């Protein structure tokens, strides 16, 4: 019997499973992306996200710098850390800004994040009304454990000394850039007796420590007396001083 030729196979359509997979993928992908867009828009249900800021979803550098590091009032760093560096600063002082720009990021990354040193910001206001206004806001933010974000943002926006640069708009912008901060409460607390008392206490402490200008830095180990660091405002200058403090 001669071989029967096979009929030409009909052109096959796409595999049913593949079609199902593509449809399922499209539905899930659209749901994921739409969910992300909707939930990250304005006051969506992702308010619990701890470190968001800005309408564009970006995080300001000063906020990112201290993100994830424990804060308590004016201190930044692990509560278990015994070695503390006091930083006496005025938010209008250009050298304080220089320290914040040039040395602070390295100090935070190398000493504070690993839990070796904690920082204590001792705000002063001797340059003028802008210093006082910014300091009150910063310390009030400290009552919500957000002081370090606020001072970083103030330095970022620092204007000419006593030019009136700490406007209400600048304050609003700074506070709006700190995720999880109750801005209304900060503004209310800024004029509170508690904050005014804190400012006076820091001024007295600065006198006791013979702080001659800003920025001034002191090391405190446990309950020992603070001693002053005389260093340039660079990471290279702070490293040996902090290493010595950790050894001693």
């Amino acid at each position, binding site marked *: 019997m001669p071989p029967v030729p096979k009929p030409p196979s009909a052109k096959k359509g796409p595999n049913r499973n*593949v079609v199902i997979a593509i449809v*399922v993928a499209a539905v899930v992908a659209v749901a994921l992306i739409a969910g992300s867009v909707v939930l990250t828009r304005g006051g969506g249900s992702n308010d619990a996200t701890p470190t968001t800021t800005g309408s564009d979803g970006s995080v300001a550098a000063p906020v990112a710098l201290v993100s994830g590091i424990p804060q308590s009032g004016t201190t930044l760093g692990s509560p278990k850390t015994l070695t503390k560096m006091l930083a006496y600063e005025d938010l209008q002082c250009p050298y304080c800004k220089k320290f914040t720009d040039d040395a602070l990021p390295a100090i935070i990354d190398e000493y504070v994040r690993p839990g070796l040193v904690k920082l204590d910001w001792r705000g002063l206001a001797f340059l003028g009304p802008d210093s006082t206004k910014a300091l009150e806001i910063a310390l009030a933010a400290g009552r919500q454990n957000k002081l370090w974000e606020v001072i970083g943002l103030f330095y970022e926006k620092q204007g000419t000394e006593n030019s009136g640069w700490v406007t209400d708009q600048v304050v609003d912008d700074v506070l709006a850039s700190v995720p999880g901060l109750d801005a209304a409460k900060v503004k209310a607390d800024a004029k509170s007796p508690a904050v005014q008392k804190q400012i006076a206490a820091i001024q007295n402490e600065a006198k006791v420590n013979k702080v001659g200008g800003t920025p001034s830095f002191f090391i405190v180990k446990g309950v020992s007396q603070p001693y002053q660091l005389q260093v340039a405002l660079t990471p290279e200058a702070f490293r040996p001083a902090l290493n010595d403090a950790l050894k001693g």
Partner: protein
Amino acid sequence: MSDRGLRIGQIVVSVAGVALAAYLTYVHYQPAALICTTGGGCETVQQSKYAVLAGIPVAVLGLAAWTGALVLAIWDSELARTLLLAIALIALAFAVYLVVLQLFVIDAVCTWCMINDLAITPIFVVLTLLRLRTAEARATD
């Protein structure tokens, strides 16, 4: 390339995806451990509001997807291939979305995320499609 070779490729790529997503999940909860070579872009992206979807870190979603892909690549069946295709296409679409977010919305680039979005995921998609074509060619023979 044979189906076996493509499947091994999928397993290798999935392992890389699991490792990367596990690292990104870890640094989501331990930001101090983040190693970033692009001037803080990783931190910015990791801490943006887009890093969490409905309370679940995107890194965790990635870890779940890559773990699922690895299991399916090891489990060699027609159903597994179909599910792998679905996962690959979802991952590709979401990766494109994440790249757009980094470049145009967050305005910061996370190197680790980009490796996942622009290298690992597309390679996995290509391997999956090639494997599907191989299977279809085998079926028509």
